[in-house]
């Protein structure tokens, strides 16, 4: 039932039903590093549809984390335009949740306290807070571990807890930076299925960075392929399959081959990196 309503939301005919539309226009990010300027992202355009699951893959160091930090508002120093539902992104906001690769749970707080920490700015009764926390712990399948400290949780459980903490504010957009990158293969597959279920039961737009092309295709409505030097989106692959998905779907395998071919052909981008640098110096 959830699945059906989900499919309806994502048709272009009814885009206004759900908020969580993210727009990036000509985004450029430069770091000053050792007195030198390093262009990490340039000419980055992206439209993320409300309620969509967008996967981002790309070679290591191409600026994926940097991009996510800009969207999260952890770094405000960029050129171009980033807007959520029409308003420009400035600083962090409870509308934009972020899950880091390392779960970043506070070790001195229990699971329950960690999740409740996300609600620190929310004005609500203790009862309402407790209910929200309990619901989200249940959503990620950790009921019964409310009083556990992070050192008592496995890597997979910690990452589930981090997802619960990020979702408890019901953000419009959930950003996930290689959330399963540090987990073993089996746990990863399990959590991918769980994340798909969670996404289908929530209203959030999700943007997930991953270095695992299978994972990107299994979860993503679309997969954005990034290239490096400087970082940009090379192209976007539509994954035209309904959720929940079958990992064995032939389309997924065909698309995987295409994307891997693109990611491994890395000679061209290097020479391009010289162009913006020289252009800037002469101009």
């Amino acid at each position, binding site marked *: 039932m959830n699945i059906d309503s989900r499919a309806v939301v994502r048709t272009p005919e009814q885009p206004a039903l759900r908020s969580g539309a993210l727009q990036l226009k000509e985004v450029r990010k430069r770091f000053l590093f050792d007195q030198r300027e390093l262009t990490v992202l340039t000419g980055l355009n992206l439209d993320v549809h409300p309620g969509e699951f967008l996967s981002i893959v790309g070679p290591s160091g191409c600026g994926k984390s940097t991009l996510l930090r800009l969207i999260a508002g*952890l770094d405000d120093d960029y050129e171009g335009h980033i807007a959520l539902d029409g308003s420009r992104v400035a600083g962090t906001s409870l509308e934009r*949740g972020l899950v*880091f690769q390392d779960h970043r749970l*506070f*070790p001195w707080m*229990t699971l329950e306290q960690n999740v409740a920490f996300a609600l*620190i*700015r929310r004005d609500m009764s203790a009862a309402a807070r407790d209910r929200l926390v309990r619901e989200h712990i249940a959503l990620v399948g950790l009921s019964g571990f409310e009083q556990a400290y992070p*050192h008592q949780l496995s890597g997979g459980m910690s990452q589930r807890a981090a997802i619960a903490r990020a979702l408890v*504010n019901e953000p419009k957009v959930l950003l996930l930076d290689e959330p399963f990158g540090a987990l073993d293969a089996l746990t990863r597959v399990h959590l991918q299925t769980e994340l798909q279920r969670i996404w289908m039961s929530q209203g959030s737009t999700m943007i997930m960075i991953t270095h695992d092309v299978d994972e990107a295709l299994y979860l993503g409505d679309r997969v954005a392929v990034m290239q490096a030097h400087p970082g940009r989106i090379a192209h976007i692959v539509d994954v035209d399959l309904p959720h929940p998905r079958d990992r064995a779907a032939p389309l997924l395998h065909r698309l995987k081959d295409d994307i891997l071919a693109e990611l491994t052909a890395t000679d061209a981008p290097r020479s391009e990196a010289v162009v913006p640098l020289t252009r800037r110096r002469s101009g």
Partner: protein
Amino acid sequence: MSAARIDEATLRRSVMVASPLAVLLAWQVLSAARVFPPEVLVSPQAVLAAFGQLTASGELARHLGESLQRLLWGFSIGSGAGLLFGLAAALSPTFARLFDPLFQALRQVPVLAFIPLLILLFGIDEVFKIVIIAKAAFFPTALSTLDGVRGVPKAWFEVARIYRTPLPSLVWRVLIPATVPAVLSGVRLSLTRAWLVLVAAELIVADSGIGQMMEMGRQMFRLDVVMVGVVVCGVIGFALDRGFVLLQARLLRWRAQPAGAAA
């Protein structure tokens, strides 16, 4: 299975008391063999008898009370000041630059080297002793607080920013818990240092306290009294440290206990 575990626990406990027992035995053998004159190497029995007398007369309790009171004051002042100093130096680069050379230099001077100067300044009253103890307690806490606050990972602050944590909550719920482990290990060192310095200072100048009791014993050639002081110093120091470790374990319940680290 459970019998084996009990045996193991008993074994571990017996190992713990093995070295004190060995020392006691050697002491007994040496004194019984009269290797040294009995007035110099008093026998354990004589020390026990002196302990009984000093306890019955209330003398030991009075000296110990005086010492512990000084310890409490000196340690609290020194460690508290160290905490504030460490915080200020970690949070304000200007403060750190201003005081770092002085801090580093003073840190290298043994506490006892200040005694002549402090006697001239404060006489040999309580103030002098408390200043000496505070000086000893100041540095370990200051250093560990400085390192602890500076070492809080940027990652925690990012999580706090994501959830728009207000400053008071940031301090109470993130900064302080993240710093407490480092601070506590510094405070533990401060407590040990304070106790050592206290006894040493009382040996040199005091009109009461456990060190003074030992010094009087020495002057009157009552080495049984001196030995009572030595044993009491060791036991009290040990008990203070153990007590602190228990407190530490209680405050840091959330940390994974390394295997076999039970207090």
